[in-house]
């Protein structure tokens, strides 16, 4: 058969979102690929320039819809730096706990989608089922399942409800048990190894060259994790390991994510113990009034105060479930951010798609792209 281009997307079961992978195939072998993004470009960076600082949080939840907490955290860190706000310690721990729960939820979503890509039907349901339990927990203290609007400049919106830590501990135990079941369903299967070993290989040097981060980088043997290398929030006060694999293939990424979930549970348990022992405020006491009341009418005293607020630049980096996410925020003293720039890890991971898809079979594309864990919302923003 001669070579031909096929469009995998924007409506295609492989994409898990709205993007288009143009694939040039020769028979069943992929010769060339070209990713076409932008089908979900919602202009979040532009809209943010039209919003108050706390209103941007709403957009961050929708920016990456499987890791809302992580993106809130990313934005909040940059905004606090730009606005020179300090945060009470309890809020830091709550943020760490929320982000880790979000990491587990995001990885469970990845698991559900990934196993469906290689044809395993049942674990999709298991992944979604256990993810729903985490969302229930989120719902109990933020009120939302996926879009929380929980973190605030200067802390978090509210404290945990009574009895929360016990429920969270119970869930942790349940999840640890379930991870064994997941491994049985996947790793114990010969076909799984046949499908996932030695495909989508992207070695460490190539990862760094093309800006690939996150589990893909760690699966190539680089022990890079911003939570360890450049600790933010309370990550320097909790113990955890950074899992590393050497094979740089799809199975290695699977193992990395599974181990990351276990490590997240470990972090969560430590933060829960800390939260039990240290009650206190969760939001900074002296916040500028305009931050507390984002919907105040124009002419309010808060806005007058705002004019005298110092300028600032904020730069933050977090280890999002998908990899390294950066934010750069310019505060020009106005009531809205002057410019917000977000760097999504998936953006860089997809941009290197030619490096890890070309040369494999068409049937390898779903597992490979599944192992990248694509969230189009944060790529297109």
């Amino acid at each position, binding site marked *: 058969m001669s070579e031909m281009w096929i469009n995998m997307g*924007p*409506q*295609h*079961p492989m*994409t*898990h*979102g*709205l993007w288009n992978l143009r694939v040039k195939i020769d028979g069943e072998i992929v010769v060339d690929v070209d990713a076409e993004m*932008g*089908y*979900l*470009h*919602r*202009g*979040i960076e*532009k*809209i943010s320039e*039209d919003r108050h600082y706390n209103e941007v949080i*709403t*957009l961050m939840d*929708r920016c990456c*819809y*499987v890791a809302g907490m992580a993106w809130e955290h990313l934005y909040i860190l940059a905004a606090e730096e730009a606005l020179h706000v300090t945060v009470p310690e309890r809020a830091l721990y709550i943020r760490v706990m929320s982000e880790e729960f979000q990491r587990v939820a995001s990885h469970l*979503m990845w698991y*559900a989608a990934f196993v469906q890509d290689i044809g395993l039907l049942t674990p*999709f*349901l*298991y992944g*979604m*089922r256990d*993810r*729903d339990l985490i969302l229930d927990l989120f719902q109990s203290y933020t009120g939302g*399942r*996926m*879009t929380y609007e929980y973190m605030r400049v200067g802390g978090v919106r509210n404290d945990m409800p009574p009895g929360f830590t016990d429920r969270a501990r119970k869930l942790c135990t349940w999840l640890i048990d379930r991870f064994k079941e997941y491994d049985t369903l996947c790793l114990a299967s010969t076909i799984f190894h046949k499908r996932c070993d030695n495909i989508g290989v992207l070695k460490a040097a190539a990862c760094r060259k093309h800006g690939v981060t996150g589990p893909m980088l760690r699966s190539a043997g680089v022990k890079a994790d911003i939570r360890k290398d450049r600790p933010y929030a309370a990550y320097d006060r909790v113990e955890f390991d950074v899992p590393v694999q050497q094979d740089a293939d799809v199975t290695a990424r699977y193992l990395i994510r599974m181990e990351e979930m276990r490590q997240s549970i470990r972090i969560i348990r430590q933060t829960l113990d800390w939260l039990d022992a240290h009650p206190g405020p969760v939001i900074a006491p002296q916040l500028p009034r305009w931050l507390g009341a984002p919907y105040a009418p124009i002419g309010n005293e808060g806005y007058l105060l705002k004019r005298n607020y110092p300028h600032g630049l904020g730069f933050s980096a977090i280890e999002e479930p998908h990899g390294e996410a950066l934010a750069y925020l310019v505060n020009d003293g106005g009531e809205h951010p002057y410019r917000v720039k977000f760097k999504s890890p998936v953006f860089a991971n997809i941009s290197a798609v030619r490096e890890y898809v070309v040369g494999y079979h068409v049937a390898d594309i779903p597992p490979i792209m599944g192992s990248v864990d694509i969230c*189009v*919302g944060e790529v297109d923003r």
Partner: protein
Amino acid sequence: MSTPVTGAAKVPSAEPAPTEGDLPMVDQPAVSFVEIETLRAREFIPAAKEALSSMALEKGQAEVIRPVFNWAGRNSLFPLHWGLACCAIEFAAAFGARWDAERFGVVPRSSPRQCDLMIVNGTVTWKVAHKLITLYEQMPDPKWVIAMGNCATGGGPFRTAYSVVPGVDKLVPVDVYIAGCPPRPEALLDGILRLEQLIRDRRE
């Protein structure tokens, strides 16, 4: 399915007064078979068509065929399997173990040719608009559209953005709107059940 009534006086008064849309054609009786026999062959087909449409189609379709097919149609809605944005995750959750939309016969299909329901689960951008219309046109009739979430309904939090279609009803006709950002899976199931209600009351 009684025989066609030929006079208004014969309608039993005990029956509730039919609404205008339901009114049987009492004043213009259908072409009777006696008349058909006297027609010439050339006139037979239009006359028979008329007779059929007035009697068999009107009555039979209304009381037998339409309910049966509407029953079938509303109980087996195959939505298009695609995810636009945040709502797609809740869409997936609705097919998960806890909500299990398959209970209602809702099974997502990947090919638009086999679908009869398009759930627009997320923000529609101008870049994807023409692909959405193409997909809608590829779906065979009869077909329905559910606008899931605020973005699909009216642009949601992104309505001011330069790249976002403020509401998918600008592109395709929408049958059911579901509010929420994103709507919970229960809300999606409720929307599907409301669509089933719409199909049950359909008169086409």
